[in-house]
């Protein structure tokens, strides 16, 4: 009945979209690679110029189009941002976005904002592994499947 896979032989592997800032978090992910730190392959990285460039539209579109979770990662506040205040903008948008997503019925644990510097390869790997675990517990989001405009049956009284 449930397809969250918790009790099946083939565990559910969540799809995570990662928006990684070009100056800190993407090099951080790169470092995880060059250091051969193992982490689960669930995250598809998208390099952006700054966490402040991550329009909430991107996050919502990822969730609407099949992602189970979204990671936004940028430079440590207050002062690491290459553009001075982009990470602060991300920090201001994030809680309001979570508040609104919860109204939509999307658990706030599905979207994470993390500060990962270029030297934190290990931390990057931990964040991805942690997110995978959280999402496995929550199960798939399946927005398009679950949100078919009109249910085919069971609608009529």
């Amino acid at each position, binding site marked *: *009945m449930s397809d969250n896979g918790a009790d099946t032989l083939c565990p559910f592997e969540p799809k995570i979209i990662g928006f990684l800032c070009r100056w800190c978090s993407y090099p951080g992910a790169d470092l995880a690679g060059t250091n051969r730190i193992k982490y689960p392959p669930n995250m598809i990285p998208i390099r952006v110029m700054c966490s402040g460039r991550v329009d909430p539209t991107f996050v*919502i579109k990822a969730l*609407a189009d099949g992602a189970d979770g979204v990671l936004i990662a940028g430079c440590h506040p207050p002062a690491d941002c290459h553009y001075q205040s982009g990470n602060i903008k991300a920090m*201001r948008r994030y809680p309001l976005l979570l508040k609104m997503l919860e109204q939509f019925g999307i658990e706030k644990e599905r979207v994470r904002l993390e500060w990962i510097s270029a030297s934190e390869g290990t931390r990057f790997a931990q964040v991805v592994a942690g997110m995978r675990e959280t999402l496995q517990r929550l199960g798939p989001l399946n927005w398009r499947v679950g949100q078919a405009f009109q249910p085919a049956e069971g609608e009529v009284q």
Partner: protein
Amino acid sequence: MSAKPKVAFYWCASCGGCEETIVDLNEGILKVVEAVDIVLWPVALDFKRRDVEAMADGEIAVSFINGAVRLSEQEEWVELLRRKSNLVVAFGSCAHLGGIPGLGNVTNRELVFERKYTAVPTIDNPTRIFPSQVVTVDGHTLELPRFYDTVKTLGQTVDVDYYLPGCPPPSNLVWDAVTAILEGRLPEKGAVLAPNKPLCDTCSRNETKPETLAIKGFKRVATSTPDPQECFLAQGYVCLGPATRSGCGERCINANMPCRGCFGPPDGVVDQGAKFLSAIASMIDATDGEEVERIIGGIEDPLGTFYRFSLPSSLLGRTRIATGG
């Protein structure tokens, strides 16, 4: 017997305000009637579905349809009108974006019925009688339309040629659209028949908008009165101007009410609510998490405020329907 182009008006899930806007053309309506034959207008004229069914496909030059689509009957009507019409214009916010009825997408059919037929204080319904789709009385079978869980826009139901935004669309835009169609000056298919600048660009209060907007706390028009000249955002009122198309004539602004977003976003913005969230959150004047949380606490209902008119047309479309439970 005339060769005048045929025009139809129809309404789905709406309040009737869009019909009012046509009446507001005043003497202009006489010019419209001079130029066209109105073949369907349920609010004012007595035509039946069979009259429309009897027409040839494409016989109606243009159908103006207002309202969102929530019932199977509305779906049938708009599909019929689509077949019979050369052009279909989504008239007003509800047909364009889902509008106020579209906020029904935060709930579903069961909860709407529960509220409407039992929970409302003025309802006394101890045996819990709900509308059924099929009822048999004295051997006669009566059928009611299906009531869907999800409200759709007109464009999500049938192919739409043009959109006239607004709640309701202002008469001058209606007039421009009607004359453009009559004179064959048609824009690209799918166009929104209104200017393509954000409202802030034309807002009379734009001059008072500071270079950088910094909001320390949100205010509500329900509990305080805005200054009649100053930019609403500068005062801390949630005003959807930055993410909303202009052309409305600033009726709300002139009545000292912040923009609520009925014109929808300008071209290129996929999701009005998300875009506005992006804008308003960046104006929050705080650099630590706790302070940000405190200020955000002033926005009680982000979903209902940012998607007041556009929920069905948004990327997520509605709240999550529980599955498998």
